């Protein structure tokens, strides 16, 4: 049943913790980015770890948990605002088992665990997405939106559509793990 999703070995860098990062992805400021392990960054994705808070020292700009997927052509950009006259970027924190579909732009502040985001979405600045929520394909979430746990949002602007089933957590966990297993190099290259 588990049809493999093949990639060419040359395209992906695999880390010790099992992260697979496409060489065709743009990872800016990698020292400010944390990947939890077994997370896939697809080709064409752009991750802006360089947009960090002003000030000295290290700062985690974008952190991703385990079993995440950043789809092809996604843009992950930390949110920014001007507070008391000072312009600043703010960190973006993403939990475990989060899948983000192709060509989606994410400027969220936090995304919980077991969250599915469809393709071609815009997740506005400082959005907070709680655990087990789902954003349908082509959804536009305006800045500062809060998306409660176990709810499905869709539309432009994204609105609550329905409650998700009680077993969402187990399902998303199984799907994201399965996706990672299916994502493998072409057999001829193994």
């Amino acid at each position, binding site marked *: 049943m588990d*049809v493999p999703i093949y990639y060419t070995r040359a395209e992906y860098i695999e880390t010790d913790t099992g992260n697979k990062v496409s060489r065709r992805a743009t990872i800016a400021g990698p020292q400010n980015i944390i990947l939890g392990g077994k997370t896939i960054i697809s080709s064409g994705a752009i991750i802006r770890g360089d947009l960090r808070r002003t000030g000295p020292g290290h700062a985690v700009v974008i952190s991703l948990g385990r079993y995440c997927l950043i789809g092809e052509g996604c843009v992950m950009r930390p949110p920014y*605002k001007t507070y008391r006259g000072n312009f600043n970027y703010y960190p973006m924190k993403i939990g475990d088992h989060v899948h983000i579909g192709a060509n989606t732009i994410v400027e969220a502040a936090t995304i919980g665990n077991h969250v599915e985001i469809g393709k071609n979405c815009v997740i506005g600045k400082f959005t907070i997405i709680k*655990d087990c929520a789902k954003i349908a394909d082509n959804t536009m979430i305006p800045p500062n939106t809060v998306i409660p746990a176990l709810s499905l949002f869709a539309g432009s602007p994204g609105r609550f559509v329905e409650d998700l089933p009680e077993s969402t957590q187990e399902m998303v966990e199984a799907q994201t793990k399965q996706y990672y297993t299916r994502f493998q190099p072409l057999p001829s290259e193994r």
Partner: protein
Amino acid sequence: MTPSIEYYCPCLAASPHPPPPHLPSSTYSFHPLHNLFFCEECDAVRCNRCVMVEVSGYYCPNCLFEVPSASVRAEKNRCARNCFHCPNCRNTLTVVPSDPPDDGDARMSPIVSSTLGEPPFFLYCNHCRWDSAEVGITFEKPTGLAAQLQKFEDSAPESLEFERLKEHFEPFLRASSSSSSALHSAAAHHVHTNPITAAASSALARDIPGVGKYNPLSRSRAGRDKHAHKNDIPDYKSRVEVASAGINAGGGEADVDFMCRLETMSEVAALEQRWVSSWVASLHSSDLKPLRIPLQSKKSKRCPSCRHILIKPEQKAQSVRYKIKLVAANYLPAISVSLPHAQAAVEMMKRSTALNKSAAATTVDEHGASAGALLAGKTYSFHLAFTNPLYDPIQVRLKKAQMMQAPGADGDKTRRPPFQVNLPSSPFPVAAFAEAWEYEDDEEVMFGLEEDEGDLDGMGRQQRDGRSKTRTLGVVEKRANVTVVGGEVILTKEARGRVKFNMLVSYTYRSDDPDGAEENVTGTPSRSHASSKAPELKNFSFYTVVDLGLIVPREESRIDPDI
């Protein structure tokens, strides 16, 4: 579209058999496995359409504040903090000062913290740019806005009238709720009646002759009590004549006039913008008011038959854990369907695209779908993968449900069904679930040598094409707690529509339920296995609907003359 399978919930229907799958209404009876519950007490599947739902807590979906049920009523089920929907687009509104500090980037102004800036404050939509100053709503302070707006809502003539109505019915409501609570203790479980429904239906029954009163307990004592009460209510006199009072909307000449002079569509508030309002709303989009955000609830679910709790969420609003969660996926095998010929086609595409360019994943699906089409007049094999969630092995047996007559074919009994389905006739085992097996990269494949002929339905076989030589009826693969079996579908030359059929799945499992066991088999299933006594076997059956996809007519060029 990929093939799919859904599970049947009889919803307490008298007949255990599911509706025929070609009826559009049948879709309401079938659900994905993960949407179903399981009542251990009744040994039955339950779904969201039949469970009893109780609110276990309220919260605001925006500020996530958990609202105590005591304040829910006073605050009219809406958030009493600073949460508002844009009346124009339903986005969440932001409080902004009237004089945002100029930082040279206008796009950022709504993000500016509301703790700075000058009054008056107003509500601003950062999606459609609506703001409350447009409709004359501004605030001196950026806090306590909901209370200010609610005061406004509550002083509306309709709202006052409604309050008076409630007062008027109050004595009656109190009387009927006390009698109905007496009744709840007296066993009549599953009657969803509340005092308000009862009051409304009594009033309706009195005012409109011939309208049956909603009273599921008319023969009970409580029913008679209600009859006794209904005549005690004096007539209600409304404070204002709604039709003539000219309450800011309400149709009539003014609206006609407004519509006649309309210049742009956006002057009229869309139906969607108006019907969330509790009262008659103005047609003018310029009259739209910010909406306090309606609260949401966490829900407990009970079995409709025995009232046992199936779902009980944790109290905390944003927790995704449950104190009780009896879902069908923990009891019934998960089944997934696939068409090997379609999968092979998809895999070919994927392999070639991965080699060439990996950016075309979306188009692959479409190509794959056409390559894996079901052509009329051909025979295809399909695979059903069973995943066992139980800690004990199970034996599964499949049976196709009786094919129903096609709609509109009452007189034409000889009409052949558009396709014939053959399923493995002998039972097959699915190994027990074990944590260690989860997601192991275990590629070991055993090809079953199940005898695949034998009497399949006892139906006449049809001519097969060359493809069917590789077909397998029976076990195709076993790995961990998954068993894959093959079936086949034979499409007639005239076949049209979807290949959709009902399938009965029965499975036997070892029961750790001591009831009915004379030798008192207690303890875990594995322990009872160790004893020399034969374990007690139990059987559970459920119906599913399998949808293999749309049939592609044999000759695309042949066009029906009468269309």
